[in-house]
């Protein structure tokens, strides 16, 4: 899977146009959530004798349906009036994460993966089915950051410039876009 920074930078490039302030922060957190639980857990399991098998207990934390339940739970931490928006922002980020993972390539090549125990299992717990598009290898994504980070920086600069030139308009957009979710 792509590294965390690639997920966050791509999320920023895609989400910055639609989301502002706290919603954007939660969206970016969502972009990181599946890996935060799965990879973070794997990191903690390092060195244990049965690490490869124990990782199976963490795999559902990187599947869309389990993450949906997780986001519903996390949204309960937010006060009344913002819970729904928090859930949408978090889960939208998670979906952006899964879309990026879906385009990754593995040794099995594009299409259906016969190695169901090592794939993403997109429909778990309903099915062990797995599929991928296969555009890039996981080790390629840190290289892509060389282009993605300047792109995100350019978007940020363009927004700041727009706010300086027309502060009323940009504030208005913020308010309007803030209500989209």
């Amino acid at each position, binding site marked *: 899977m792509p590294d965390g920074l690639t997920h*966050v930078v791509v999320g920023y490039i895609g989400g910055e146009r639609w989301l*502002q302030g706290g919603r*954007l922060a939660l969206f970016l957190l969502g972009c990181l959530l599946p890996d935060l639980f799965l990879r973070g857990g794997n990191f903690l399991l390092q060195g244990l004798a049965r690490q490869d098998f124990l990782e199976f*207990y963490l*795999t559902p934390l990187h599947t869309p349906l*389990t993450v949906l339940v997780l986001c*519903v739970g996390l949204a309960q931490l937010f006060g009344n009036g913002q819970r729904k928006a928090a859930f949408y922002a978090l889960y939208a980020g998670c979906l952006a994460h899964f879309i990026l993972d879906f385009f990754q390539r593995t040794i099995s090549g594009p299409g259906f993966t016969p190695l169901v*125990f090592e794939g993403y299992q997109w429909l778990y717990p309903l099915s062990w089915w797995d599929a991928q598009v296969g555009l890039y290898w996981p080790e390629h994504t840190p290289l892509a950051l060389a282009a993605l980070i300047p792109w995100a920086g350019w978007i940020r600069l363009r927004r700041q410039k727009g706010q300086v030139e027309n502060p009323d308009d940009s504030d208005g957009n913020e308010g309007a876009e803030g209500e989209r979710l």
Partner: protein
Amino acid sequence: MRYLHWLIHGNSLAHRVCVLGICIGLVVLSCLFHGARGSERVQNILDGMFEQDAVTGMFWRVSAVEEDAVVVTRYQRVLRIQWLDGEAVASGDRLSFVVRRIPGAEEWVPDELRVHGKAGLKYAVSFVAVVWVFFSCVLHVRLDRENAGLQFSQGRRPCRTD
């Protein structure tokens, strides 16, 4: 039905704690089921692959590099793969492969190989992302005692008197 309606539409702190508990319970159940079932499945699938003398593996760890072979391990299995093309590989690297075994031979012959390198770089790059998101959340999300929950900033709304 009344309880279900309260669960979906309730706004009280008790409701939120209840929903949070249910969500955590469901996630834990999901993880336990996958852990138990997944271990069993991987053993069966690997047994089948070894019986057929053809194994496909993703992200196995290189545990030793020999003169003309590499030794990879995962799921408590060890494979010794022939290494002919001289591609750079080091101990600790992650390797994906499609290999087959010629009957009687000790080494596995690769049909396809991919060296992914060490996972350390990805962890390091991901750490930067975690720091970025952490600070982003600290800037925009705060605890609201009145609502007994977190609140996030929504950006400044335009004021008619501005």
